[in-house]
């Protein structure tokens, strides 16, 4: 007995999707180390896509056979209905984002070279490519999978870092506008580390309060531990900062426009879709499993955060002249709409299921549309790279009607116009919130949507009702991007016209709620 450590029981089968992704990431590292440069790309692309697709198939298979009712891996990971749904969503979004990454020309040849130096010039002429992108993406996706499924705060912190660290790097790898890209990476890293510290400090304080980092145990401690409220309140607030930072809720949103703008656009797409989904999954789990008993106190605070987030996102987006920054603010506003759904979680089981399923549907709908929108951004190019300034998009409807129509569709979906996926997403969330008694919040949400509709429609007007400039940008659509756009259009339209299957799926997934 003495000195022996009992071997943990790990349900490898249940963890298989994560294991496949992480395994592929490690193989990717080995490829980087041993395969000759000319082969790497050819190995990475199929490997990455196959890993993501395989993980997705396993997830589906798991969801169809048995959904565990207890946490797995000694209580560190909880694989339940919502987690599986979120996994499926993240894997599909990551898959389409990788299709975007596949298309050449987004990443720098040599990231370590000083921008504009002779060294960089040489790497360019040699045709060097940063194939490390692929294993980095796989690690980030692995982190995204673990983040919403983590059942204790330490596992969640590890997941947060596994997800974030590769993304910090990926942000700095843009081929064009190197300085902006490196600035974005440094900012993201500094602020991310700052917020991680908050998360960790909150974890420590909660451990001090509850004597455990296990979410369920913290939840049960809420009713039994007395006289430690200071620890609890500060701990919960700190934890909240870390999570709200990741979803870009105000007042922790400042990084989002700068990072979204500077990053290579395919990475922006991955962050705007996958990271957001993962962060919301984690946020829901923490506030539902661990802090469910404290709901009466966090609900008003979440109200304030949701209102501030929607208003800041919608209002600041109006004066943006850069398409990527505009989409970043749009993403902030959508984070606010999603927070309405978080507020709608309440005491009654029925409300919880409908609010949770509404959130899950919203995440799918928004994720697809946002990847599609960023995919379109990659196709409109000037001599110096992508044409970000809105004035360059003037008259695009006359030059490339199809591209403009597709982008308009995505913008209308963001605005929540009926017959697009965005309408049902918003509708489901708002309806759940009204049922839960959060009507004033819904009113703010609708007003913000109206403000947001202005800048979406403004872009449409610009594209279709302005004359194109003589030296307007050209539109280049590589095969992968084409497929991504088609998939996003399909998802946006099908979820907008015939949403019931996915709504049912989300409902079934939400039925089991989060396991404790």
């Amino acid at each position, binding site marked *: 007995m003495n000195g022996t450590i009992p071997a943990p029981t790990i349900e490898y089968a249940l963890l298989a999707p994560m294991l496949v992704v992480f395994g592929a990431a490690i193989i990717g590292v080995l490829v980087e180390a041993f395969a000759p440069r000319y082969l790497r790309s050819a190995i990475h692309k199929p490997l990455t896509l196959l890993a993501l697709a395989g993980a997705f198939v396993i997830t589906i298979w798991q969801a169809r056979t048995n959904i565990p009712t207890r946490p797995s891996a000694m209580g560190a990971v909880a694989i339940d209905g919502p987690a599986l749904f979120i996994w499926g969503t993240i894997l599909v979004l990551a898959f389409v984002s990788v299709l975007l990454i596949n298309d050449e020309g987004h990443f720098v040849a040599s990231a370590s070279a000083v921008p504009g130096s002779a060294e960089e010039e040489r790497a360019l002429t040699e045709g060097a490519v940063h194939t490390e992108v692929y294993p980095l993406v796989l690690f980030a996706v692995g982190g995204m999978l673990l983040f919403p499924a983590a059942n204790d705060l330490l596992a969640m912190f590890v997941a947060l870092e596994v997800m974030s660290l590769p993304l910090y790097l990926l942000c700095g790898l843009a081929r064009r506008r190197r300085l902006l890209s490196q600035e974005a990476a440094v900012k993201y890293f500094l602020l991310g580390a700052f917020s991680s510290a908050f998360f960790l400090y909150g974890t420590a304080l909660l451990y001090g309060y509850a004597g455990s980092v296990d979410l369920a145990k913290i939840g049960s401690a809420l009713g039994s531990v007395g006289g430690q409220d200071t620890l609890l309140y500060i701990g919960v607030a700190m934890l909240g900062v870390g999570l709200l930072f990741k979803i870009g809720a105000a007042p922790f949103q400042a990084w989002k426009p700068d990072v979204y703008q500077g990053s290579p656009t395919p990475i922006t797409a991955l962050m705007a879709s996958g990271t957001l989904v993962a962060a919301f999954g984690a946020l829901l789990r923490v506030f539902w499993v661990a802090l469910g008993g404290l709901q009466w106190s966090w609900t*008003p605070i979440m109200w304030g955060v949701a209102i501030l987030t929607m208003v800041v996102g919608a209002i600041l987006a109006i004066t943006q002249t850069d398409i990527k920054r505009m989409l970043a603010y749009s993403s902030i506003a959508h984070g606010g709409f999603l927070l309405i759904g978080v507020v709608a979680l309440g005491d009654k089981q029925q409300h919880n299921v409908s609010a949770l399923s509404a959130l899950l549907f919203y995440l799918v709908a928004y994720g697809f549309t946002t990847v599609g929108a960023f995919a379109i951004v990659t196709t409109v190019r000037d001599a110096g790279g992508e044409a970000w300034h809105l004035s360059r998009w003037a008259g695009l409807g006359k030059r490339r009607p199809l591209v403009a129509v597709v982008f308009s569709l995505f913008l209308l979906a963001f605005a929540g116009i009926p017959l697009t996926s965005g309408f049902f997403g918003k509708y489901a969330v708002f309806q759940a919130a009204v049922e839960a008694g959060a009507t004033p919040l819904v009113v703010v949400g609708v007003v913000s949507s109206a403000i947001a509709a202005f800048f979406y429609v403004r872009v449409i007007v610009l594209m279709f009702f302005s004359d194109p400039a003589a030296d307007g940008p050209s539109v280049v659509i590589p095969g992968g991007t084409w497929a991504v756009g088609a998939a996003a259009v399909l998802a946006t339209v099908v979820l907008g016209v015939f949403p019931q299957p996915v709504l049912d799926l989300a409902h079934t997934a939400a039925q089991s709620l989060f396991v404790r």
Partner: protein
Amino acid sequence: MEPAKIIEHSGGVIGVSWLLIALPLLGAAVLLLGGRKTDRFGHLLGVATAVASFVVGVLVFLQLLGFDPAERRRTVPLYDFIPGLTKMGLLVDPLSISFVLLITGVGSLIHIYSIGYMAHDPNRRRFFAYLNLFVAAMLLLVLADNYIGLYVGWEGVGLASYLLIGFWQHKPSAATAAKKAFIVNRVGDFGLAIAIFTIFTAFNTVSFAGVMESGAHPSQGTLTAIGLLLLLGACGKSAQLPLQSWLLDAMEGPTPVSALIHAATMVTAGVYLVTRSGAMFFPEGSTAAIAVTIVGVATLLAGAIIGTAKDDIKKALAGSTMSQIGYMMLAAGVGPAGYAFAIAHLITHGFFKADMFLGAGSVMHAMNDEVDMRKYGGLRKVMPITFATFLIGYLAIIGFPLLSGYFTKDGIIESAMEHNATLGWLAVLGAGITGFYMSRLVFMTFFGQKRWEADAHPHESPAVMTWPLIILSVGSIFLGGFLILGNRFMTFLAPAVGRPEHLPSFHPFSVAGLVTLALVAAGAALAWFKYGAAEVPVTAPRGSFLTTFARRDLYGDALNEALFMRPGQWLTRLAVFFDNRGIDGLVNGIAAGIGGTSGRLRRVQTGFVRSYALSIFVGAAILVGAWFVVGNL
């Protein structure tokens, strides 16, 4: 005698009576969708579908005659129209079949006539498509076995009328007239729509059979309201006071349109509506029925007075149409004693008015589309067939003994006299004025000196135009006597609308009849001295204030403009002002406010990572503080 029960029917020609509507509708669809490819045979197809529909109508009529009179109300179920509200079916009974035969019969003749009249119009195919559309809609109106189906037909008729009045849309006057007709009709249609809503609320059904047999007993007030709203609808479509103003302008349409729609069929829809709803909503002596008679008498006098002063041949005829429909309304308001006369007059009027309108078209065709009668004169010698047929129509309308109008109008006057002597004598007065203005029209056109424009070379119209005139004039001679003598039509119609216990008998020498004849003769004589024997000035003299009153349509338009149009325009201007200054100001103000806020807020986004970190720190501090505040509440 009460109307008979409506029974379900299947089989035979009646079973496929939907063909009546489907045939012209198909014609319209082919001509409208086929485009220029159908230009070559468009007019022939249009005529063929109308005639085919007439043939089906005759067969349906014959089958109907085969049944016992008490079983002559038959409904043919078609499909579930509005699930849970009403099924769609066709009601074939003596009333609807009378209309079917009139619409398809006279309609076919006018189709044929139009081949010649529109021969040189580049859009002849479109014209026939609209005519077919009109026939289909009108047939739906009279055949539907429920109010909603009737309403669909009602609106379809309104649409076809709009399209045809504005057929020469390159003329601003035609476009305006079409718009006016549409808008004025909208007022009436609104009344009909609300009436149908009320019927549904009160009876929980909209089918005629359902309402008739409904056990519901709505309050008298509800019934009166429904009756008055239905009357409003009828006034719109039938150009009765106060919604009469559109009919005179509607003469901007091609003349066959004036003949078919604005004389023979569409304008009779109001009479149909009142008669069809009579047993339910206009029982004898009810407020609604009294309102119908008052509207009828007022319109018959107003139309006649307008007719005395018009120099435009079509407008004089339009005034006459108003007046004659006023007679029908009067009879319809009288109740079961009047229905048969109302519908009989409607049918004979359909013949002689179509005859005269087409005759007028023939004259215009000959006179380079001149419509001013002061520039006609002496045309009887150059256009003998047109003259002869027109003369028969004229004699019929003024009630010349033994012609159609004599029997039917006399029936109306007699039944009105029995109902209320004042109404009866006013109707007699109307007949006298009719004698004057119709004689004036005939004398100015066909008699007296030639006052033609220099380039006018009148000639008789081609056979395709004269044959319909001849057929119509034969009807104008004999139809009235055939229908009225021996109460033939009243007996036939009785299962559909009921009839009085004592059948009226025809008195050739009643007091009212003799006075009517005397007044008509006096009117005709006056017209002869003023317009036949005397010189007619080519430019209209100023005339007394009474003449001006009549020329200006009794100031109906002025009244509408003062009461509705100008206040409406002011309201529009006010709304625009309020929209620009108030609402737009508010909206733009909010937008500017948000934009300004956005511009100020974005300065917070400095780009310095230290500021961002500070904002996170401050945010965290606020969050912690908030938690303490909320937690300790």
